[in-house]
């Protein structure tokens, strides 16, 4: 992880920890791997789009870009609220959430710090998509 220390005047000192740097490269590799998988999934019939984000990066690919904010807020809310419910029943970390609405559905998951949301039409095969994306 890269830490930024800002002084009040002008210089920006960057301290680089070698272990963190290696972890960061691993994280980036996972992110890249997941993005590739998502790009393939996106081509499948019934998939509306996806959002992937971690602490440093985010990629969004949606059929309706005007709904980008709506989808982004929703996926964030879904993961947060799901974690709340999971904590309430002492079930530990959430691995994935499937939410089905009357028109569409969404599959959200957290893979090694990468929060992924895949939006699809109701008849899309979410089980197959989960298999493809899971490590």
């Amino acid at each position, binding site marked *: 992880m890269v830490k930024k220390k800002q002084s009040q005047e002008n210089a920006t000192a960057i301290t680089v920890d070698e272990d963190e740097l290696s972890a960061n490269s691993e994280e980036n590799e996972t992110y890249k791997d997941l993005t590739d998988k998502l790009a393939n999934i996106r081509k499948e019939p019934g998939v509306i789009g996806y959002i992937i984000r971690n602490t440093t990066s985010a990629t969004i690919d949606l059929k309706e870009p005007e709904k980008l904010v709506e*989808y982004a807020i929703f996926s964030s*809310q879904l993961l947060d609220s*799901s974690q709340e419910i999971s904590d309430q*029943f002492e*079930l530990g*970390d*959430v691995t994935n959430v*499937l939410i089905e609405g009357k028109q569409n559905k*969404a599959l959200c998951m957290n893979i090694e710090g990468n929060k992924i949301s895949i939006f699809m039409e109701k008849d899309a095969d979410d089980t197959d998509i989960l298999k493809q994306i899971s490590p």
Partner: protein
Amino acid sequence: MSNEVYAFALKSTLDEIQNACPDVTSNFVFKDGKIIAKNKTTTEEDATQTIRAFDAITERADALGDVENITIQSAKGKVNIANMNDFYVTTVSSKEADEKYVNTLTRILIPIVIKLSEKIQPASTDNETETLDQTEPGPEEDYADEATEETYAKDDTTEETADETEETNETDEAEDQSNQTYYEEKEEETASIEPETYEEPEQAEPEPEYDDEPLLPEPPVTQLIVENLGGLLVPSDTVRVDQDIIKQWNELYGDNKIKEVEVEALNGKTTRCKFKNIKKSKDSGKGIIKMPEKIQLTLETQQGELVTVKPVIE
């Protein structure tokens, strides 16, 4: 329909689901943000927090449409919130739970119980209301305060003093008067009901009509083939039926005299007529009914056709 209607049935069902599948650690049902029923292991807080989190999700789920199902897969178990007949059923299960089994149980039992509750309850609710209307004398305090209210009403009409207790506005007075009228009417109604229900319960309970007339079995319907009955001395309003059939009727109805039978043809036409037993021994036990031409014409039937016969109990 009130949510309380479903509560008992659903609670029992949730408990039974958990009994059948111990891997279900918690389950509850909610609707419009309110807990309808929960099993014994679910705490109020668990349910409330879940509903709150669920509401937060649904508020932002416009892109998906109305939420029908949420499945949260966690490290140590799973939470499922499913919409069933406008109720949301939450099932929390451990990692070891057989998902198919739990889903089958929940998704079959809960909707059935909800539908049954809907079908059964309206009738019983109506009956309860009727019973209450007839017997409930109204809140006790209404009667207890009646004398006091009457006094106030009288005071208002005769004198207006500065006493704070009598400083009621006009609407209050009107209410008091209408209440008084209502209580008087109610009292009259109660008085008219009381003799039957309270003063003479011994006479009211056993109704003589039912005591005198024991329940009789439904008249047995026998299918017979029509045969012509002719001759100079044959009455035109009497059919002849097998002796064994008449015996059966007599055994069934004991002292109740059977004077007539109802005959129905296949075309649906019916007639009542007198009956006698078949004289000739060669015709008995053949499943026939001997019928004069006049009755055959009435029924628009003829020899060889089937008719049904049942006794008329007087």
